[in-house]
């Protein structure tokens, strides 16, 4: 508590993109390498402004593609620099092979992702297909639900990434447009030095050093490759704990923490709705009309996608008669096609929990999802629950077939 009083904040109207840029500045990053892409671009524009104005002492590399953006971050991080990059959509896809290099080399890079749909056809609008495609890259994936949380999560991301038990890159996702380009009041540190008490600059990871020459990323044969990759499995397990610790310590230091799943009215409800990102705000807005329609619905928002927070999901499931899972991405070719719903079902199955999981695909390519849609989705689910009905295929909400 004593610490808390020392921290001074400034309250600013910021888009989530700007909030992320402020956080990267306050983390005193040493390098930022990026290539513009909608809806991420204003993150790096803001950072270049900070650097140009002398508010942030960092090198900015205007690379020629996202592939180079993450590669440059890898080079800098391998030399012990605190590295940052930001992207979205096709940019994240173009980085895909480099994502595996960053995690395989165990480099604590932090990246923000303003989640956006993928081509073809081109859509600059938001959904989570890009972010969900990073599932198997061994990055820690946080998904924020507000500009404030995005700011806090970027600072937490360095705490997690640089923890010597983890040493994995961390991604902070949030809704393209609905969050990246809308303004909210955000408290940012008045003095960025305060952030460094939480995330002191200390090189905790193995770096290159010409004085003591080593080779990173060298060929691993069948006799050792497997064990090296297994270390990433262990690191992910450790990350699960460290994510919670980092959030708790953030709360002690700065007075805000989020937990792993944010919940509203989930105890004693008729059913609970689980989702991620900014759509949670729409759900909360809809809670009143849902209640007026005679349904007691609870709402939950997942903040951590990788490592997958199975304990918290189990706890939520144990007190739910049914889970309605809203996904803003599609896993093509699977009957249950929502990436989150699939993880939830697998966790429930392996723990013998057999409640109905109603998976709705919503908000694809920024198809509107309003409070009214929320009401209809919850009502439809409640009807199915009353009939004891389960589903074996996702419901593509509002699609014209």
């Amino acid at each position, binding site marked *: 508590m004593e610490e808390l009083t020392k921290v001074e904040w400034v309250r600013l109207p910021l888009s989530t993109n700007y909030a992320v840029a402020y956080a990267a500045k306050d983390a005193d990053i040493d390098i930022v390498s990026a290539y*513009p892409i909608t809806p991420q671009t204003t993150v790096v524009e803001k950072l*270049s402004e900070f650097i140009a104005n002398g508010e942030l002492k960092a090198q900015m590399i205007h690379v020629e593609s996202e592939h180079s953006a993450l590669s440059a971050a890898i080079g800098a991080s391998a030399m012990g620099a605190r590295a940052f990059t930001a992207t979205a959509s096709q940019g994240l896809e173009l980085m895909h092979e480099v994502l595996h290099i960053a995690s395989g080399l165990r480099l604590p890079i932090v990246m923000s992702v303003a989640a956006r749909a993928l081509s073809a056809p081109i859509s600059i609008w938001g959904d989570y297909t890009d972010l969900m495609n990073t599932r198997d890259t061994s990055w820690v994936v946080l998904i924020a639900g507000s500009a404030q949380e995005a700011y806090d999560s970027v600072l937490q991301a360095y705490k997690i990434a640089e923890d010597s038990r983890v040493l994995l890159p961390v991604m902070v996702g949030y809704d393209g447009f609905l969050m990246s380009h809308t303004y909210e009041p955000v408290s940012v540190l008045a003095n960025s030095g305060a952030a460094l008490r939480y995330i002191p600059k200390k090189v905790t990871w193995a770096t290159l050093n010409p004085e003591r020459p080593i080779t990173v990323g060298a060929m691993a044969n069948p006799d050792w490759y497997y064990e090296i990759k297994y270390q990433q499995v262990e690191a992910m397990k450790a990350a699960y704990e460290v994510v919670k610790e980092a959030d708790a310590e953030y709360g002690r230091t700065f007075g805000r923490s989020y937990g792993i799943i944010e919940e509203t009215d989930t105890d004693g409800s008729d059913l609970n709705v689980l989702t991620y990102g900014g759509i949670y705000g729409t759900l909360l807005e809809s809670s009143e009309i849902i209640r007026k329609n005679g349904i007691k619905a609870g709402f939950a928002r997942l903040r951590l996608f990788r490592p997958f927070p199975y304990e918290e999901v189990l706890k939520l499931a144990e007190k739910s008669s049914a889970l309605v899972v809203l996904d803003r991405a599609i896993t093509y070719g699977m009957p249950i096609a929502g990436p989150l719903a699939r993880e939830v079902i697998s966790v429930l199955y392996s723990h013998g929990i057999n409640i109905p999981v109603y998976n709705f695909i919503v908000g694809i390519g920024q198809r509107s999802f309003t409070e009214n849609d929320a009401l209809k989705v919850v009502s439809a689910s409640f009807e199915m629950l009353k009939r004891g009905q389960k589903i074996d295929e996702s419901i593509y909400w509002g699609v014209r077939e």
Partner: protein
Amino acid sequence: MELELHPLEKYIRTEKMPTTWCPGCGIGTEAQAFIRAVDELKIDPKKIVIVSGIGCTGRMPHYLRFDGAHVLHGRAIPVAIGIKLARPDLKVVVWGGDGDILSIGGNHLIHAARRNADITVIMNNNFIYGLTGGQVAPTTPKDTLTYTSPYGPDSKPFDAVKIAAAAGATYVARWSTAYPVLLKESFKKALQHRGFSFIEIISQCPEIFGRINGFKDPYGLYQKIRKIGQIRRGIGPFETKYDWNEEITLGEFVNKDEPTYLEQLSQIIKEAQESGQDEA
């Protein structure tokens, strides 16, 4: 009675009008010069395919009534080569911004030039990333500003003419939106050229590049582009200038006849098959 809006209307997807291009943007001038070239050459529009990456310029296939593909940012050139190899009878044209062609797709440009791939690449150089709202491009000249280089670019710009020529392009020209007739004539040559043709067009982006650099209206920026564009004849690609304060040299700098990629490929296959037969 069917009313024709314009003699070139048949080449335009009028149902897609208005375009997303800003008032005063130079891309429309380029589009018009191109369809005039196609019209004057009497090329069957059904024999043209336009491929673009992403960018304001990349919108071209939306608006011209040719078969078209709007592909990934930077990847139009390899897609075009694939199209050309599958259907050598078609004229395949890539149209892209300087970011598309020289940044993210720069590698494809030099390799297509090296192979003398039988396609035409048109590059709209507005000195900036337009669609994403004004970030520094590899062409951004010294002494100009962008939103990600608020005190000027940190590196010297690419001169696309020199790059294309050095990589082996067999037709290389640079024009500006101030010379639409010369541009049209150059399009005609490129469309008839065997092998890799590359045309760079210096163009105005008044809404973004213009505003950041203190040009209060499109005309001011257009005047600047008109003034710095110096046409020089009879000089090679390496004697040209790309200098915002002095001169950006315009003209045709390479025009030579060499076997195309497909011809080289066919030749190797033929030779290999013949030598194979000898052994058999």
